[in-house]
């Protein structure tokens, strides 16, 4: 079961990255499929939690540097076949197998595309940035793409181990929000030619002993993230009002995250006096 969860984690990431690489109608399909694989991952995780077994989110690196989409699609199909061979005949196993059969049929019929997500050109279509703004955007994308992935895993782990509906509602909102940010930043990274799989998250970060301290630190980090977005918006505003507006939009979203985390902190303290 744990090996299956790792394989689903890796397949989810590879499918998501393939979605970022695509510049055609394939993109939406690949990203939708990656969302479903993430759900499979959480369902298998729940089975492990129900059995009260320990686990972590360690995985092996997922190589994605390809010149054509077909190469990564073939690799994803191989991963899916391995997952298929590990599934049982219960309802969950049947559901995942059925999804995988549909995915494989779709992946096999997708048009090939040249992939430019790794060319390191660091240029955006129709936007001309100064060297300073390009460097700032590059560093921001690496830092924040990882951060959003890290947050998805942290909130997902906390949610999997909590039966408090109020906390879980907040964790789910934060997971959804981080998915949106991860998708936007991943897409920008691919356009810039610097797409990369986020690194493995250390287990100390999600196997949280002190939820109160975690939430306090999280609020501080959100405030820093807001500042990063504001700095980036300033750095790119002279060259592109469109990009500046995007980072202001992200920055303003962080306000609600902070408010939710403060709510979660207040609620957790009241429940654990």
């Amino acid at each position, binding site marked *: 079961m744990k090996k299956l969860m790792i394989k689903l984690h890796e397949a989810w990431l590879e499918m998501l990255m393939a979605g970022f690489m695509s510049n055609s109608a394939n993109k939406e399909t690949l990203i939708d499929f990656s969302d479903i694989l993430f759900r499979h991952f959480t369902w298998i995780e729940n089975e492990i939690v129900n059995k009260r077994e320990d686990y972590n989110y360690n995985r092996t690196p997922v190589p994605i540097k390809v010149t054509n989409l077909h190469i990564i699609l073939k690799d994803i199909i191989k991963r899916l076949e391995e997952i298929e061979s590990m599934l049982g005949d219960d309802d969950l196993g049947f559901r995942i197998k059925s999804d995988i059969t549909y995915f494989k049929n779709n992946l096999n019929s997708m048009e090939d595309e040249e992939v430019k997500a790794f060319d390191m050109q660091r240029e955006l279509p129709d936007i001309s940035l100064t060297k300073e703004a390009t460097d700032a955007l590059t560093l921001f994308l690496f830092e924040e793409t990882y951060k959003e992935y890290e947050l998805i895993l942290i909130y997902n782990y906390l949610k999997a181990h909590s039966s408090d509906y109020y906390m879980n509602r907040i964790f789910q909102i934060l997971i959804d929000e981080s998915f949106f940010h991860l998708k936007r930043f991943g897409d920008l990274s691919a356009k810039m030619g610097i797409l990369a799989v986020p*690194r*493995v998250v250390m287990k100390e970060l999600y196997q949280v002993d002190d939820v109160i301290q975690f939430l306090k630190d999280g609020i501080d980090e959100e405030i820093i993230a807001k500042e990063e977005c504001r700095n980036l918006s300033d750095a790119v505003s002279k060259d592109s009002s469109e990009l500046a507006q995007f980072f202001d939009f992200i920055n303003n979203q962080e306000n609600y995250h902070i408010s939710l985390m403060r709510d979660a902190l207040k609620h957790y303290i009241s429940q654990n006096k």
Partner: protein
Amino acid sequence: MVVDDQLIEHMMSPKNYGSMENSDVEGIGKNPDNGEKVAVYLKIGKDEDEPYIEDISFQAIGCTTTIVAGSMLTEEAKELNLNGAKNLVNATLNLLTKLPPEEAACSEMVALAIIAAVDTYEKRQNEADYPVITYNVTQSCMPKEEDQ
């Protein structure tokens, strides 16, 4: 930070990133100011009875600078004997004294994790259960507030 192709390569595909299941020893570098840390894992080989770093990997709770420093330093440390690794760490720490503290702290954390792993290995030659050594950074990446 100068953003060039070499730096981007390290950010896109950090070398030696991840835990190591069959490692012989681990060492930790830590920044107590902000909770960031680096864990270095070593697989020690023997060359004519002299121990050397056969394989090395690292994991980090930290920023991109930490990851780039980890990628570069672990690549340099690979296949060095233990004295060579100590020399590499000392040379790195000397270089870092020329940088502002907030820029030096991330690389210092990686260098200290490497030396913590080497020191733990040496301690365990006499005491098998010696705990994993953690060294704290002397630099800080938290900008100090100016005096009013």
